[in-house]
């Protein structure tokens, strides 16, 4: 049996997927969700083999929902927007169905999924290189989901495979790399001043010399962030010094 969860905020859009799936006796639709939060719960509860996922949904998008998953099931995106196709590809989606889609097109997508499943092709994990324009960061905090606009972040600190994110509301952990944030945050506001630190320049109150030829940043919150030799020129450039 193939377990399926459908996640779409428009009931009729979810219904047509369910409809089309009726001709596959081996497939069982376990739940239909209308937002990403319910989607996360359903995925955790049912551990589906395949999800149908809309992109634009309340509060968090389909892509953001995927980011919060530890184990990603196979994904078929269903959306009316064609501009997300590249991102879907980056997210190792099985297929990308543009609404409205035909039964034939739907069957092709499922066939693709079956083939991948039979050949044991790894169905992926969200790629680091998601061309996400980072407007906000979606975090999991003790089972709760938090959405933090990046401008609320004071600084990022490397922590093994994770990154500590310091905001006005406290410290959060996210399983992304420093490289990811360095690449996707707006470079005029966030500077990687150190191998282990990315700082929000609007938070800096003072740059103090430290030891021989090092510097340390004093932030509004009182925190101190070290600046490395290679980080200092980058910081100077952004600050226009």
């Amino acid at each position, binding site marked *: 049996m193939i377990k399926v969860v459908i996640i779409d905020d428009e009931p009729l859009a979810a*219904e*047509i997927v369910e409809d089309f799936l009726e001709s596959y006796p081996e497939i069982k639709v376990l739940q239909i969700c209308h937002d990403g939060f319910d989607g996360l719960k359903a995925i955790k509860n049912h551990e589906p083999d395949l999800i149908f996922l809309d992109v634009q949904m309340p*509060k968090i998008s389909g892509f953001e929902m995927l980011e919060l998953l530890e184990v990603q099931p196979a994904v078929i995106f269903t959306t009316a927007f064609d501009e997300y196709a590249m991102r879907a590809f980056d997210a190792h989606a099985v297929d990308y169905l543009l609404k409205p889609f035909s039964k034939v097109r739907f069957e092709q997508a499922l066939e693709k999924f079956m083939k991948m499943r039979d050949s044991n092709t790894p169905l992926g994990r969200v790629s680091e290189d998601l061309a996400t324009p980072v*407007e906000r960061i979606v975090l999991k905090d003790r089972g709760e989901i938090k959405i933090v606009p990046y401008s609320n972040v004071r600084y990022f600190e490397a922590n093994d495979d994770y990154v500590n994110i310091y905001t006005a509301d406290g410290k959060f952990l996210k399983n992304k790399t420093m490289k990811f944030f360095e690449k996707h945050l707006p470079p005029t506001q966030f500077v990687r001043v150190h191998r282990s630190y990315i700082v929000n320049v609007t938070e800096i109150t003072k740059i103090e010399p430290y030891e021989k030829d090092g510097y340390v940043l004093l932030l509004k919150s009182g925190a101190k962030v070290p600046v490395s030799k290679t980080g200092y020129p980058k910081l100077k450039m952004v600050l226009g010094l």
Partner: protein
Amino acid sequence: MITNTLKHSAAHRYKATLIILIWIFGVAYLMHLFVPGYLMALLVSAIHTGYLFVGLFLLENIFKYYSPQGRHYLVFLLFPLLVSILVNVAAGFTLEYSLNSSDPYHAFVFQIDLIRWFVLFLVSLSYALILLLQSKLESQLQVKEREEQVKQLAKEAELYQLRQQLQPHFLFNSLNSISSLLRKRPEEARAMIVQLSEFLRKTIRKDERKWVSVEEELEYLQLFVGIEQVRFGYRLSTSFDIQEEAKSCKVPQLLIQPILENAIKHGLYGVLGEVGIDVFFALEDVYLKVKVINPYDPAAGQAPGEGFGQRAIKRRLYLLFGRHDLLRVVEESDRYIVEISIPQNYDQSSNN
């Protein structure tokens, strides 16, 4: 022209001086044909030209602040007349003092008093005519330029309209809903097709320069809401509250629908669960106030692209009324309120 010449480059001034000198010598030459004595003729001519120059300068400055409109020909003649008399009298006095009364020129100058004045009048009049022509040309050019700008703006607005109104995702998602309804509820599918077609037809046919009554606009808005209702089902509910006096007000077409669309979009994607959108129409003073309220969660990071719709609405209002203060946005802790004021005393036929 004199003012300009004075302000302009040296080359201009040389040319002007040359023309004045030729004029002085020309007049002196003509005069000395009648009464011999070239030097005297030159003096008389120079004095007249000097005063004339001042007179024309005066004339130019008068017309800078007062340009005769329509049929005020008499007023238009009055100024050159005054100037020529003034110049004539002034030149007469100067000659009286500078010329010996026994000089043959003295007698000659006063003999031709009337002719002198007439020539001065003709010169002043021609100059006034040139000034008038020039100002007419200039204002015509300005009008043309402004027309051009307005046309350009209208075109932009139209293009934007096409993009905004026929938002492809709205269309595709609606079609997807129809596709979904077809098998199990074909009657509803048909109803949706009719609704969507009607909405599109109205959108395409609309001329954004025309004004419609609030009631007519409401019909259009309800069509739109009806489609969204089918798409989002129980999650979306919209209420319209129309004050009695507001019903007879007029609104520019295609102005309110984008605001409503924005509110629905941000309501549906900004919060979880059921979303109620409230729309109010009320007449306050000379303004029709249209208020659209959607639930909102300021803690959530705004989705990218936020603000574009609002900028467009602001621009549209500016294009229509030339004012920046007609859009008001209030962010409360859980509600997002957009209010526009549509002046009812505005000339509704000649906008854009």
